């Protein structure tokens, strides 16, 4: 008996254990860090011969399952700030719609694929590098005796956000903030997510941690909530406009990813915040290096099907 399965939209045959295994690994990361995993899964699927457009769209479909599973697990743990999530989501939808128009203009100008990749590299490098250094410093500080517990100096960003109107209490996150901030940041992440073709979890997580100052465990659950709705939107749009959602591929991936997400959510409760951040930083930096490698190493052929990444 062979273990291959035919994917009707991708028009490719893949090993069944391989697809389920990929889902499991990416689902684990999703539950652990609150990222959708699209930034990791899509390149992996392309590597195994799935057309890029089908890989991205089908991945969105499976992220719906993984993030629903992860979000549900985090909800039971009390780690989802729905109020914050809804503000970010509204901003994300607005930004995502604008981003789709922007990418159309970029494609007409040519070389949009290069721009997408270099944006990936820069974003991943910046976010991963910053998280890595910050988490490392935080871990070192905890090891040394804290001599002085001086009141930290308030940054310009913090002072500006305090001046904004409609200051609201986000009880779950334990912060008081104007809804304008998550709305604005949601728009920014939405634009970037649309350009880069991902759910935006790996950008949203650092934004919540560093700009919204939310506690890491609430960040993971809330990010999954936002990723869930973004990917529902993307799946329906891709199925309608481009016919690129391979349901069979998504179904197999989600078998693995939903299990992985549950395991990840449990693991995340056992790992300290700084450790969690440093692991995510390493993951983000590894993906960045992989993408940079793809940009500087000569491709195996100088001809590629139009529309690929």
């Amino acid at each position: 008996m062979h273990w291959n399965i035919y994917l009707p939209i991708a028009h490719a045959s893949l090993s069944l254990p391989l697809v389920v295994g990929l889902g499991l690994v990416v689902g684990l990361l999703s539950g652990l860090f609150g990222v959708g995993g699209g930034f990791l899964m899509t390149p992996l699927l392309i590597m195994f011969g799935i057309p890029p457009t089908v890989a991205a769209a089908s991945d969105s479909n499976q992220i719906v399952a993984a993030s629903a599973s992860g979000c549900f697990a985090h909800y039971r743990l009390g780690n989802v700030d729905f109020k914050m999530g809804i503000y970010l989501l509204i901003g994300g939808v607005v930004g995502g719609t604008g981003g789709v128009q922007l990418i159309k203009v970029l494609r007409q100008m040519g070389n949009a694929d290069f721009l997408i990749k270099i944006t990936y590299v820069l974003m991943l490098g910046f976010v991963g590098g910053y998280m890595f250094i910050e988490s490392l410093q935080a871990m070192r500080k905890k090891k040394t005796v804290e001599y002085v517990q001086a009141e930290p100096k308030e940054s310009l960003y913090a002072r500006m956000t305090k001046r904004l109107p409609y200051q609201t209490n986000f009880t779950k996150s334990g912060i008081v903030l104007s809804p304008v901030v998550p709305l604005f940041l949601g728009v920014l992440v939405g634009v970037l997510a649309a350009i880069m073709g991902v759910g935006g979890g790996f950008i949203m997580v650092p934004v919540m941690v560093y700009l919204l100052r939310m506690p890491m465990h609430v960040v993971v659950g809330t990010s999954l909530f936002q990723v869930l709705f973004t990917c529902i939107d993307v799946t329906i749009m891709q199925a309608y406009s481009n016919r690129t959602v391979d349901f069979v591929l998504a179904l197999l991936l989600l078998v693995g990813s939903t299990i992985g997400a549950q395991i990840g959510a449990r693991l995340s409760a056992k790992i300290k915040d700084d450790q969690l951040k440093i692991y995510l930083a390493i993951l983000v930096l590894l993906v960045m290096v992989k993408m940079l490698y793809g940009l500087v190493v000569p491709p195996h052929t100088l001809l590629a099907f139009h529309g690929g990444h």
Partner: protein
Amino acid sequence: MNRNYFKLIVIICASQMIRLGIATAEPMPASLVVTPKTVAVDTFFSGGKLSVSGDIPSADDVIIEVTGKDSKNLFDLKGKMGPFWMTRGKVHIDNVPGLYILLLPEGRDWGKKIKALGIGFSRLKSRMTTSGPQDIPPEIFKMFIKLKKFQSLYGELKDAVTYAPGSNDKKHFTAVLNLPSSIAQGDYTVRATTIANNDVGAVTTREFSVEEVGFIKFVNHMASDRRVLYGVSAVIIALLAGLIMGVVFKQSGGSH
């Protein structure tokens, strides 16, 4: 009047006899059997096996070509700018088949011979047309073949046709081709060309088709003709799967 009729009948008979005479001088075509007639793409399809067999005169050879319909293709051309490899332009490559696999007979190096006979990639090269807004590199055909070979959709397979003794001064040939899983749905042609006295002889063709069946056909139908329903169903199933898995995990020990 009767005499004129008689002359006409004589002329017709003579012309038919001349035609028959020429026909007997023509190379004998290969008998050709292709199985299956339809390759079914089902849920567990991982490529299909195509068997080609027939009989040819014992002194001849046979070369088999398996080709798909001509397709229009748009490609991105990559180039280096600074330290980065990026798309530098677009190129249309037309009048080339979606699938082209050449099966060569055993016991001989056919590399130069097929080129001289005008069979194989060289024939594709002469038919191919390219167009694009920028200069098209001279090695575009090589690049195209490399890409298609990478997808297993193009190939020249040595020693793929084997011979066995036949009856009445004939030999039996057999070839088994593993069709790639990436083969597109549609009609395909198997073309058997006999090679007699180092020259192209008779050509015999047979058709076969690749068709999606069962669940695969249903999914494609839904994705094409019921797009919104397909998208919404995919989301609902994913949501249910995620939530069911969440409940299953809760019941199997919980995470608190």
